[in-house]
């Protein structure tokens, strides 16, 4: 990546980057990613703020015993391990289905032959992706 010199003409309206940036597949890729990421991250942050609140300002709630001396505060901590894991898997599934097909389409539309070949090679589910990218209109999320 050359970053020592800037050629402004390279970033003009005719550049492949501008065309890619204004393409529908790129818009969909970015929009689909952000529309899931932002609420997901918000929910995740609220979940942890809730934990910290139960451990501090609402300590009385956190100390309600559930099984013997095991209380709500401890169970909240332990339940956040699987919940966070499930959120992570949900994010991965979502991107695979609603983000990657559009991102791959950007590469197929504006990338070099080498990039497209690399994409095919590195893609573990090449057939699925080819199916998506060969469609003229990818089913919108």
């Amino acid at each position, binding site marked *: *990546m050359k970053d020592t010199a800037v050629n402004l003409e390279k970033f003009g309206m005719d550049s492949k980057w501008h065309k890619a940036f204004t393409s529908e597949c790129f818009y969909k890729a970015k929009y689909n990613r952000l529309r899931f990421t932002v609420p997901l991250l918000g929910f995740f942050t609220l979940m942890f703020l809730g934990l910290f609140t139960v451990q501090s300002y609402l300590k009385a709630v956190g100390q309600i015993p559930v099984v*013997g001396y*095991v209380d709500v505060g401890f169970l909240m901590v332990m339940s956040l391990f699987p919940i966070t894991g499930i959120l992570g898997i949900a994010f991965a599934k979502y991107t695979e289905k609603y983000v990657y097909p559009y991102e791959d389409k950007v590469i197929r539309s504006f990338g070099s032959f080498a990039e497209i070949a690399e994409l095919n090679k*590195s893609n573990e589910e090449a057939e699925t992706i080819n199916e998506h990218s060969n469609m003229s209109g990818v089913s919108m999320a």
Partner: protein
Amino acid sequence: MEYLSGIVFVVLIAGTLVVTAMAAKRVKTDKDFYAAGGSVPGWQNGLAIAGEFMASAAFLGISGLIAFHGLDGEIFSICWFASFFVVLVLVAEVIRNSGKYTFVDIVSYRLDAAKIRPAVAVTVFVISLAYLIPQMVAAGALSRILFGISDTAGILIVGGLMIVYVSLGGMMAATWIQSIKAVFLLGAGYLLAALTMSHFDFSVPQLFAAVAESPDLGPQWIQQGGWLSNPIERYSLGLSLLFGTAAMPHVLMRLFTVKSKRQAQKSALWTMAFMGMFHMVTFIFGLGAAVLVGKSAIAAMDPGGNLATPMLARFVAGGQGTFTGELFMAFIVSVAFITVIATVSGLCIAASTAFSYDFWFKVVKKGEQDHKSQVRTARIAAITIGIVSILVSLLLKNVNVAYLSGLAFSIAATVNLPTIILSLYWRGLTTQGALAGIIGGMIVSLFAVVGGPSFMGKEAIFPLSNPGIVTIPMGFFITYVVSKITADKVSDMKYEELSVRAHSGLGAE
């Protein structure tokens, strides 16, 4: 005990040196050195990243904290684990798509590289050293207790091995050693947890009952608030841990060792899986040590509580004076030492890359240097940084430098996070804004940590030991305000290119 620990340690170190020698043969280009050839599978990279974060602080520190102060120490376990969710959704793929070896590639891509690269490289350098030195100092202190050697000898051994691993094998060796170490750590951790729980009929309520009914401990040990009595401190520490990891240079650097965005995503998911497995049982080590070994016995051997886990290992495997007890303790101690060495190696790579790649290659040489020369520069930088960190650690060996780790997280979250997020997602970011955020964030972080209770005790002029809740928003605010009042046409135009690279992988290297 000292001889047995020494033998197990030497055997394990010999194994890691063999791995380093094998890795060194494969390091031929800058990509091999900085990014392990860029072809590490996602699961192995996840294991290596988990290895970075199952460091001595996690294995020894959290257990000691729980044994001495109760379940408040769990905040580190859950937040370190969950911080990789933030890495997964916010940075993993976009960073892999848009950089080459370091995240500085990304921020300098849009902004004036001649100004921004040295500034960010300095922050990376400071963060890495601030995180590295306390680990070396702690390793010196532990080696005195465990191997019966002086602090100086301990620091020299850890530092010397770090230089060997990094200068010969680069990221390739560090990745392999972290992966192997993570497997050892998970195996030893689960064996220790199982042996501990066998004393409580494998029942968590019984473990809790034993803690609550112990005359030395009591019900407050299994409740929150024993260590973090100030609620704001809890929010601040939690948020710093959750969001600071996504800006730690040695973590971000590992995202470039995989081939594609999909593998980067897998890395973060596997990291969560391995870290979750480990951190879900750390409370067993802490509470188990408090009940079975006893608080006073742990404090008698190490007032800092770092020996809670090794002492628990000896107890559950047969007790003091038995072969199995001493062997298991020796194994745990040796794994903990390899953990320290592997972690400082990762930090050394991050620091040396900040100099050799971000500053020397990109700024001084203007990107004109052949592969062999780049590797040579990287090796010289690694050796120099290794020697500097050994000397600084020796100078500070009798000083409490634990606050430096907090400083590292604070600077990462306050300085790097706004720069990364805003350069990827905000068109209005300017070079001046980013520079102001970097310099201002550094000053704010330094003031908050050095003026805080960790450094100044009761005379602190800043009330929080973990200042993230104040400094992170300030980092964003400074960057935003200065960007708003300045103009940067190039940054504005290059936003489109960076955005396309980050969110599609087009042009990814």
